[in-house]
């Protein structure tokens, strides 16, 4: 008797949990539709004839599919050039930030250096100063250096960022020092310890930082907008914003251009999702 009642209760609770997960799935699926529809809409519009864009009700699947739009968008503004510019700027910033960040974080995590904690607090404090607040004087400083409308005007100010220093320091602190002590007895120099022992153990956090810095540099808008004036120096974001002003209502080509501009970052995201999530988690929780 008791056994039977038990199984009955069990199947009931099973039914309940089944219903619950069904509701969950419906909620989450509906939500993810809302998140993805704009992307689908972008791709769908990008592959339509201009006349088809202005059909009501809108068609989700273009007929015919106009692949040529991508070509037209690529040629209608010097997109290849913008790609190269963005790639160059973002890569330079990544390399610079990794280098300055690794060196500084190593001092904060390991070396005996007078006043290092105060200097570190200074860095953390600068995280509270948004770039938007300092954009005017930064622009004026660049002007005195004659760096307006030059790539170094975007790259050099971004060569160091407290976020990277903070992230790397946290990670270095979590590595046990035993290995380094052994190396020191063997007569390894301080920088040797960093490059031979600590860095090989930090591949994960370094790749996280690489992805983060690359994405934020690729997506940056306000600062390149202020610094750059000539078209052949534009980054992809500036180019896209200008194209939106020029093209006005040619939505098919505009969407094709937007699609091309977002493609690298979305691909990078799909490949490096784990790194991105870890980066947010590390800084999000230990802030």
């Amino acid at each position: 008797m008791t056994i039977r009642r038990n199984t009955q209760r069990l199947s009931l609770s099973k039914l309940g949990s089944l219903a619950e997960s069904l509701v969950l799935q419906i909620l989450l699926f509906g939500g993810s539709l809302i998140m993805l529809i704009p992307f689908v809409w972008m791709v769908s519009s990008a592959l339509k004839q201009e006349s088809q864009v202005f059909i009501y009700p809108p068609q989700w699947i273009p007929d015919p599919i106009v692949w040529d739009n991508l070509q037209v968008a690529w040629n209608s503004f010097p997109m290849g050039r913008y790609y190269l510019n963005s790639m160059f700027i973002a890569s330079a910033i990544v390399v610079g930030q990794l280098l300055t960040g690794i060196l500084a974080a190593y001092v904060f995590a390991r070396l005996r250096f007078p006043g290092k904690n105060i200097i570190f607090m200074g860095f953390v404090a600068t995280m509270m100063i948004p770039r938007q607040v300092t954009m005017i004087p930064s622009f004026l400083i660049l002007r005195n250096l004659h760096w307006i409308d030059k790539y170094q005007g975007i790259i050099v100010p971004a060569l160091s960022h407290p976020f990277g220093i903070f992230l790397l320091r946290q990670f270095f602190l979590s590595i046990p020092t035993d290995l380094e002590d052994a190396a020191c007895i063997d007569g390894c120099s301080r920088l040797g310890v960093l490059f031979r022992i600590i860095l090989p153990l930090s591949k994960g956090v370094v790749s996280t930082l690489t992805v983060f810095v690359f994405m934020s540099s690729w997506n940056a808008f306000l600062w390149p907008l202020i610094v750059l004036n000539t078209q052949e120096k534009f980054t992809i974001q500036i180019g896209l914003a200008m194209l939106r002003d020029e093209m006005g209502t040619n939505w098919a080509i505009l969407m094709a251009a937007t699609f091309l501009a977002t493609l690298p970052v979305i691909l990078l995201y799909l490949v490096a999702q784990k790194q991105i999530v870890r980066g947010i988690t590390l800084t999000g929780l230990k802030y």
Partner: protein
Amino acid sequence: MTAKTVSKRGSRRRWSVRDREDFWTGLFCLTPAVTISLIFVVLPIIYSFYLSFHQWSILIADKPFVGLDNYRRLLKSTEFWNAMRNTAVYTVAVVTVGSALSLFIAVLLNRKLRFQAFYRTAYFMPVVTSTVAVAVVWTWIYNPHYGMMNYLLRLVKLPTNNWLVDPDWALPAVIIMSIWKNIGYHMVVFLAALQQIPQAYYEAASLDGAGRLDSFRYITWPLVKPTTSFVLVMNTIFSFRVFGPVYVMTGGGPMRRTTVIVYHIYQRAFEMREMGYASAMSWVLFAIILAMTLLQRRLTSKGETA
């Protein structure tokens, strides 16, 4: 640990050699990062403070000292207050609705679930996409005649409107887009916090007959509270700095109804060349952001000790 014992026992000379090596290595390692920060963060903040007491249109070399005039002027400026109000409305809406939705989705996702990887990817996708790209796509979505927004609204029999060209709906349109773009970021932060809560708590609660809502209220909510504060601060700071969507989608209009503070500063500084006045506004913005950060930190640390 070992270093300490060695330093006590070992000879002083050996340590001073090592100290010296540390000093020179440290100097070498810190110089690049410190130099960049000094020139492009510390110097600008001082320089902008100086500028805010001067009147300077960049074209003329002369910058007369005007005392507090710039600050007085902005306090009286209807355009400044309009920008502040728009920014405040935007911030409150994005922070409250956005953070609540992020937490809600994180709670739903925080269990073993089919398609979980897909959901995470989908919710996070807008975060990595550039603001400009997203803003261009949403401008098209908000097109009054052929846009998808009004089409979907008509499908579910809701009233449509002209979104970005309607003075009353332009700011809400920008807000909706921003919430959509940033949900994923804070969702990931919340998920990380939720995963730290031991499953045993929930099991114990459900044995005691607690429902889903009870577990949320008595277990989840108190334990993610520090994270909630963190998300609120970050979200507030990010929202106060909004610029890209406004630049691309509305250009501050219609009727300046979407002119937010950074956009206003940008226009004053780089279109009208009023560097002094724009610097004064930057300092007000900085003071507000700083005050909010400190306030939230204080609230957070109190919550932790209590």
